[in-house]
């Protein structure tokens, strides 16, 4: 039974990681930008959600406001800065790095250095029996939300017009442009949507994991591991990688607390050696 609990914990955490890694991976797949600011989108989103929750008491409103605010910030960064260096990897990475630092310090300024926790939404503040244990309902809710979003993203990518354009853009942006797809708008949309997804992750994570200075870097690193394992540019890879990393991280924290990250990084190293482009990445 204890194993079921660890697996459930891992999957719940994995779903949060998926929300962050999915955007990171799609943004890279479409425009070849390694967006380091993604860690900030997660943390800033969480903080904004926290403030909205404190002011209004509504978790849904917290999620929405954070997603809209971070989506707009993401769109602005893409339009005003990243666009100038289309397909020039190093300057783009440096820019997103600069913004990671700027947001990191702003967050420290605005919300202070102490870890902050969001109150668990009232409805989920209970446990369900699981064998001889009681399991927090909120984590099951996380798993459900993550599954719904993953399913929704997949459906969107496979069955909508915009999703088809997205796949075309990932495959070959030049040809997609030549076929009359407005790649420019697509870039901004995907960047904003990826940012909003990360902020969703931040708000959803806040009742379970605290928000603290440095959470942006910590989360970014795990999201990197997820897409190294799963492969850049692949939704399936992001999901598989996120679940694997979530479970390994939970087991590591439970059994080797001093070397928690090792249980995540050793498998990453093995996968790198065997398949440098990740489980689902293309050559």
């Amino acid at each position, binding site marked *: 039974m204890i194993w079921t609990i660890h697996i459930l914990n891992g999957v719940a955490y994995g779903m949060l990681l998926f929300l962050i890694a999915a955007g990171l991976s799609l943004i890279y797949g479409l425009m070849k930008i390694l967006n380091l600011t993604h860690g900030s989108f997660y943390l800033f989103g969480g903080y904004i959600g926290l403030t909205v929750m404190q002011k209004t008491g509504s978790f849904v409103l917290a999620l929405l406001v954070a997603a809209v605010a971070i989506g707009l910030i993401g769109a602005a960064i893409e339009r005003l800065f990243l666009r*100038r260096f289309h397909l020039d990897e190093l300057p783009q990475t*440096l820019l997103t790095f600069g913004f990671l630092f700027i947001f990191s310090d702003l967050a420290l300024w605005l919300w202070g250095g102490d870890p902050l926790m969001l109150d668990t939404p009232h409805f989920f503040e209970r446990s369900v029996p699981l064998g001889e244990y009681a399991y927090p309902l909120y984590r099951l809710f996380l798993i459900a939300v993550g599954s719904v979003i993953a399913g929704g993203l997949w459906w969107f990518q496979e069955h909508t017009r915009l999703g088809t354009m997205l796949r075309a853009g990932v495959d070959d942006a030049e040809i997609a442009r030549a076929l009359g797809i407005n790649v420019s708008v697509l870039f901004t949309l995907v960047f904003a949507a990826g940012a909003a997804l990360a902020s969703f992750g931040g708000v959803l994570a806040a009742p379970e994991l605290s928000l603290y200075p440095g959470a942006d870097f910590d989360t970014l690193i795990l999201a990197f591991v997820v897409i190294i394992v799963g492969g850049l540019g692949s939704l399936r890879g992001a999901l598989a990688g996120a679940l694997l990393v979530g479970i390994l991280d939970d087991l590591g924290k439970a059994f080797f607390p001093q070397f928690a990250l090792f249980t995540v990084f050793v498998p990453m190293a093995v996968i790198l050696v065997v398949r440098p482009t990740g489980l689902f990445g293309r050559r």
Partner: protein
Amino acid sequence: MTGRAVRLAAIVLALAFLLALPELVRPYYVGLATRMMIFAIFAMSLDLLLGYTGLASLGHAADFGVGAYAVALLVLRWGVASAFAFPAALIAATATGALLAPLALRARGSYFLMITFALSQVLWSVAFGWRTLTNGDDGMPGVPRPSFGFPLDGTDPFYYFVLVLAALAALALVAIVRSPFGRALRGIRESESRMQALGYDVWRYQFAAFVLAAGFAGLAGALYAYFNRFVGPEYLYVIQSAEALIMVILGGAGTLVGPALGAGIIVFLEDFVSSMTEHWVLVLGVIYVLVTLFAPRGLIGLVNDFRQRRAEP
């Protein structure tokens, strides 16, 4: 005067100035200059990877930190004489590079950046988490400076010690980038596949560059541990790697002078900004954005543009 003579004169003047510096300024600035030179070594070592080999590492602090932790652990935990700990630290950092290189070199471009980042954070998490060995985030104070028959405890003797080592490191790096090996690295930066076709074992050259860069970074790390008489996990943290990256790019990647200048500027700015506000990280972020927007090829690039514009009116 020819370009060569001008350059020689500039080097002689700079050396004379650096030698006389402790007589000219207050001890505080001698300390600041020591830090600048330590980070100049660090930035030049990264440039060997970024500027000459075309590998953008976001985990160079790993080797820097290993050099620093090695001197601290060897002396404070295992009682090794500090004169032995110093060369041992260089070996430890080089060995770390040799261990990490095969993993990192599985990938290129963004993947390489992510992997070096992730690997360096693993080392950081060890330094941070293994409290019984490293004291975790409290760090290890009281790292004694080595003694090679002359004491290095004063500000001035340590300054000269670092000056000599920085000069030697710079000479060694200049020799490396001018050698056939260095030319091959530049060839690899321009086109891996072409060098492969010419019969070069590209992987081995990249591996060698990675390991050499790690060794020089370890030298800088060990010196920094001596300078502060302290090591802490922040030596290995991504911000340290990121600072090195911006030093190289601000100065001008692919020239050794540029990164050394960039290191001096960033260290000076950090000192200056930190004395006025706590928000150094914010300022560093803004520097990143500004440099990328306005001087993507660094200060050396700006100077070259200016020269070219004057040459062809």
